[in-house]
């Protein structure tokens, strides 16, 4: 199959627009901070705009929390912890989480559309992945709340206290669920700071907490940029800090907590190798490569951003990959046919474009698809680099965009050597039809989540988290409860 063939076929069989409607709900013009069960303005009165990255239009104005607001939120969480939440039986706590899970399911389409508008991800993903998984996380953890005695054999688990949680913009509501569900199930109260480019679903989640009748102050949400997050981490009233984001910020948080007893878990960057052996089912592997790096525009910490392909099938895989990539539709996140939505923000778009330049300057060869992209908004066409060396920045550093680095290998040992040769260790993938080889490779990759003959699968019962500089602590499953309890 040649490239020309493919693109001709593509133009013969175009897709008519199939936009998801956004008329069944109405966003407010402005949102306050959610403190002590109420929406309140920031003390300073400051606000910032959150925009739709697909058309650069403002969606709403959001309160910008300062130090005093952070202090109010932490105090509200402390009061709720001391007076209500820590005293409540696990069974009753669990019932609140079940209610929240149900309301997320009930408001699923609204949440999916807002997620796609605020963050740029394709509606197909927010509708079929983000929102259902967020509900599932609450449902799963609800059941743990009265069963913690079974989670830690030989120990008694008790809550830690007030948790400050900072989450990124790539899976806004899903990260709310990953952080808040285990914290509340284990009896802690929460002050959450969502990312400044994607605050809307966290604020809708605050409404959901009101609807669920969650006691005031158990969940608090303060919106703002990095300075708000820094003020939260600095607050002496926290017993626990949980952060998902970049490795640099994670390290800075660990340093700033150095003199304090507050516990810390970090879920940071990644540079996962997706290893394709010659005996793999190549067509399935190509789908896996696509899903690994182009899911959510590549804004995924566990993205399969490095392809390691066995030399004997390198040409075949690269050709098939090119052909498959040419079919990817980049465009309106709310269109049900869209495969790749908008890059989350202007800043991130520039960062990715910088890396595209860096890769070429380093001597790698860039391939990009020829699909049309809208004029307004932030877009990057599906891209990969060949002729890359292990030391190249595009191999060592997290790009967080739809950019794949392709390397080849001859032996299994060489594949593992290359896979492990970065400071990260979050995830990895392997494709082969040989069972024994699967186990050898999944054992050999130094990373917390390994997908064999699949990629980018998630489940509330499945622990997620990194080795090395990808952070520490796990989220999900029985292991994900550990960061939110004291054991005695």
């Amino acid at each position, binding site marked *: 199959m040649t490239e020309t063939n493919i693109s001709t076929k593509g133009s013969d069989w175009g897709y008519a627009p199939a936009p998801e409607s956004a008329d069944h709900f109405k966003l407010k013009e402005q949102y306050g901070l959610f403190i002590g069960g109420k929406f309140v303005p920031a003390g300073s009165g400051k606000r910032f705009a959150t925009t739709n990255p697909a058309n650069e239009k403002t969606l709403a104005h959001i309160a910008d929390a300062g130090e005093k607001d952070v202090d109010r939120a932490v105090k509200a969480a402390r009061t709720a912890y001391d007076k209500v939440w820590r005293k409540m039986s696990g069974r009753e706590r669990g019932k609140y989480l079940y209610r929240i899970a149900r309301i997320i399911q009930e408001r699923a389409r609204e949440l999916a559309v807002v997620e796609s508008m605020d963050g740029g991800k394709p509606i197909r993903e927010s509708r079929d992945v983000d929102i259902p998984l967020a509900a599932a996380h609450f449902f799963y953890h609800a059941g743990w709340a009265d069963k913690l005695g079974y989670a830690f054999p030989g120990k008694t688990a008790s809550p830690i206290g007030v948790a400050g949680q900072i989450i990124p913009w790539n899976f806004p509501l899903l990260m709310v669920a990953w952080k808040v569900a285990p914290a509340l199930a284990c009896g802690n109260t929460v002050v959450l700071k969502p990312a400044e480019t994607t605050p809307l679903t966290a604020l809708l989640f605050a409404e959901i907490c009101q609807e669920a009748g969650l006691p005031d102050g158990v969940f608090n949400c303060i919106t703002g940029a990095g300075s708000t997050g820094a003020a939260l981490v600095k607050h002496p009233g926290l017993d626990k800090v949980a952060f998902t984001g970049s490795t640099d910020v994670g390290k800075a948080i660990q340093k700033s907590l*150095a*003199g304090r007893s507050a516990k810390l878990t970090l879920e940071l960057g990644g540079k996962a190798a997706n290893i394709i052996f010659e005996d793999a089912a190549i067509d399935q592997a190509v789908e896996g490569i696509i899903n690994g790096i182009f899911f959510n525009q590549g804004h995924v910490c566990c993205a399969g951003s490095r392809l390691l392909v066995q030399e004997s099938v390198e040409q075949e895989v690269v050709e098939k990959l090119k052909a498959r990539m040419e079919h990817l539709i980049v465009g309106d996140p709310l269109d049900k046919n869209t495969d790749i939505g908008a890059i989350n923000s202007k800043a991130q778009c520039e960062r990715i474009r910088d890396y595209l330049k860096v890769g070429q300057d380093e001597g790698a060869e860039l391939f990009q698809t020829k699909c049309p992209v809208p004029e307004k908004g932030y877009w990057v066409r599906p891209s990969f680099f060949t002729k890359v060396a292990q030391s190249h920045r595009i191999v060592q550093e997290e790009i967080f965009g739809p950019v794949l680095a392709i390397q080849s290998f001859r032996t299994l040992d060489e594949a593992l050597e290359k896979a492990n040769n970065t400071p990260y260790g979050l995830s990895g993938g392997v494709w082969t039809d040989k069972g024994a080889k699967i186990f050898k490779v999944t054992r050999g990759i130094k*990373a917390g*989540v*390994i*997908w064999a003959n699949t990629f980018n699968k998630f*489940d509330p019962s*499945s622990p997620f988290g990194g080795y090395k*500089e990808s952070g520490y602590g796990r989220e999900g499953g029985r292991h994900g409860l550990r960061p939110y309890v004291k054991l005695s």
Partner: protein
Amino acid sequence: MSGNGVNKKSGRLDVRKTYKMLIGGAFVRSESGRALDVNAPGGKWLGHVCRASRKDFRNAVVAARKAASGWANTTPYLKGQILYRAAEMLEGRATTFREVLQSIGFSPSAAKTEVTQAIDLLVYYAGWADKYLQIFGSVNPVSSPYFNFSVTEPMGVVAYVSGEKRPLLDLVSGIAPIVAGGNTVITLSTGRAAVAAMELGEVLATSDFPHGVINLLCGLREELVGQMATHMDVNALVTQGADAKECAASRGACALNLKRFFPREANGKGDEDPYRILDTVEIKTTWHPVGG
């Protein structure tokens, strides 16, 4: 024994021991050529121990890293047998250890308790070597057609700073869970505890631990803890009995490569605790489709 080691009955001059560190299976002095005096609590001079340098620590990390994958892939059954063998060796030298502990100020009964507890602790962790995975691992009921399981894996190279109050027990209670978890370890013993630690080196060297799995250093805490916390090829730091200042400095320095940091109280609580093994292992989750 008289002051200079001449046996009063036979008139024979004792052959003294040179306390050496254990790095990569070899008994060595510090590359720096430096030594520290060890005195009994009353002030009586007992001898010299090495004062390990930053370079000694780095050499030990190289040895530990070299041994890491072999030890990680040693079967749990064999790890258990080797830990049990260490208990056997320590039991066989219990008298020597009681004497060493008494020479640094332990009463006979306290020395006996310390030695027997250390032996029993090795037996305890020997038994965990092939069991903790069953306690801490899991098969996860994902809601999609995949088989999904989580296992423990060693972190790699762990640095351990031992306390002084319990020269033998602090060391064994630190080492045993770290190596039972499949890691290799570099330990630091300080003050008088160093003589017991160096003596333990001779036990560990005859217990079938592959070279480099356990590396014992002695020296000054304030000189070496910072090196341990900042070394880029160390995966975790466990400390016993750090004060608030050292804890803060270590936690901050560990951020450099996000090495895991576990400060422990030097009160002996929780010596027997499989959750100590959990501290220095990672959880790895693997997915595979179920289908035709």
